[in-house]
């Protein structure tokens, strides 16, 4: 009674009518079910002025050095618009004035497509920000997650641990971040939870059952490692310049354990080889 069901095909995603967030993923074909909870937060970028580690290191293009994490609208109800049709359902969420999200569930697909539009990241308080989204599931991942290796094999990562040396954890977030070019996944004895991306992002699993993706960054300080400029991208048009707005997609799917690899490899290829569209005109019924 508290949920809105979205999805014209086998895949159903439940949205809480109360909070406007998705709560559950259910595939009617294979009966896979998982809780899903999404949230947004940002890491405030270290400006390099503190002497905490005696290296005066600012967060910049090369070095991810957050000094705090702040949830975005975690308590606020988000306006939701749901569009339902024969081919796909869409859920529009205006998360904040600079975060807009469209979630799509297709009739003939068994994954959820999430399109994010983020930016310009506000910097009027003088603090650089690195925006992340968290997707929490009920997978019992036990500190273990898997990330692709430059689009190739998925490698096992264990939080706060390296197999070949004794790791001292000074940066709990940055020390567990990995480059994500294709995707990452979690698994337990029952299910696999996979996320594939359409662009290179940063990612991690800092909490069991949770995957985290960094969607956009806007920084005000140079990290002193070579760029000699802050990562503060702007776009100029119509007589004004503003911070960059990015738009991208990621894809979510839950499979029975051992069955996710096929989707990750085949759909991963499709993400990076999109169908090419070409347009022309023709006269009347002259079908070439």
């Amino acid at each position, binding site marked *: 009674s508290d949920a*809105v069901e979205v999805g014209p095909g086998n895949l159903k995603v439940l949205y809480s*009518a*109360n909070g*406007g967030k998705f709560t559950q993923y259910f595939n009617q074909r294979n009966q896979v079910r998982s809780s899903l909870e999404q949230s947004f937060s940002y890491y405030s970028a270290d400006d390099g002025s503190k002497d905490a580690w005696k290296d005066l290191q600012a967060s910049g*293009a*090369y070095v991810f050095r957050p000094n705090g994490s702040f949830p975005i609208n975690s308590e606020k*109800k988000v*306006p*939701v*618009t*749901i*569009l*339902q*049709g*024969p*081919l*796909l*359902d*869409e859920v*529009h969420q205006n998360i904040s004035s600079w975060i*807009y999200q469209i979630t799509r569930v*297709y009739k*003939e697909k068994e994954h959820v497509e999430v399109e994010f*539009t983020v930016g310009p990241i506000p910097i009027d308080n003088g603090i650089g920000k690195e925006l992340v989204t968290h997707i929490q599931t009920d997978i019992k991942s036990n500190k273990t997650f898997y990330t692709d290796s430059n689009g190739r094999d998925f490698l096992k990562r264990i939080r706060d641990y390296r197999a070949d040396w004794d790791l001292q954890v000074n940066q709990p977030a940055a020390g567990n971040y990995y480059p994500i070019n294709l995707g990452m996944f979690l698994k337990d004895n029952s299910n696999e939870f996979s996320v594939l991306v359409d662009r*290179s992002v940063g990612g991690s699993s800092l909490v069991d059952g949770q995957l985290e993706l960094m969607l956009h960054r806007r920084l005000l300080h140079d990290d002193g490692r*070579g*760029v*000699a*400029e802050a*990562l*503060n*991208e*702007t*776009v*100029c*048009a*119509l007589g004004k310049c503003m911070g960059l*707005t990015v*738009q991208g997609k990621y894809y979510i799917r839950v499979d029975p354990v051992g069955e996710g690899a096929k989707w990750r490899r*085949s759909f991963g*290829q*499709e993400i990076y*080889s999109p*169908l*090419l*569209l*070409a*347009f*022309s*005109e*023709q*006269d*009347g*019924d002259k*079908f*070439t």
Partner: protein
Amino acid sequence: TTDLLADALAIAQHHDAVSGTSKQHVADDYAKRLFIGYKQAEELVSNSLACMVESASASGCKNPSINFKQCPLLNISYCPPSEADLAPGKKLVVVVYNALGWKRTDVIRIPVVNENVIVQDSTGKEIESQLMPIVKASIAIRNYYATAYAGESPTSSPKYWLAFRATVPPLGFNSYVVTSGKRAVAASIPQTFHRTDGSQ
């Protein structure tokens, strides 16, 4: 051209371009050169598609008469060929090419200004389609970025995404025809639920 995509391929492999660790003016230059590469490739692809399409029905391909256009800014819902009001008696042809070695079925979405549209497959049979309103915020972003990146000020604003299912053979193409002027049977504006205060 003999150096087709040479600059673009070089840039795509440079660690600064991949990771974003370049100065803004360098990133701007990368974007410009990538787009130059894209435009050159677009011409080649358009001619190739024209040859493929014509040779499938006529007698080979010497001087393809079909002129294909692409929509590199479709991601920001900017696609002049699909947004234009078609002249009387004209139909919009969408050729969909699949570069992978297996058959694919996917939902294609293009912006349109008119809700009175139907989609036909290459045999002329009408297929199921769906309209979704384009949100105003997207139009503002689209106009800004179309000006910034393409130097074009959009003259019209599409109202809807037209979605239809395309099936494309391995390493091949399929074509679909969008016709205006007739009330769509299958395409419809979906139900909308809006909640702002907890009530549904």
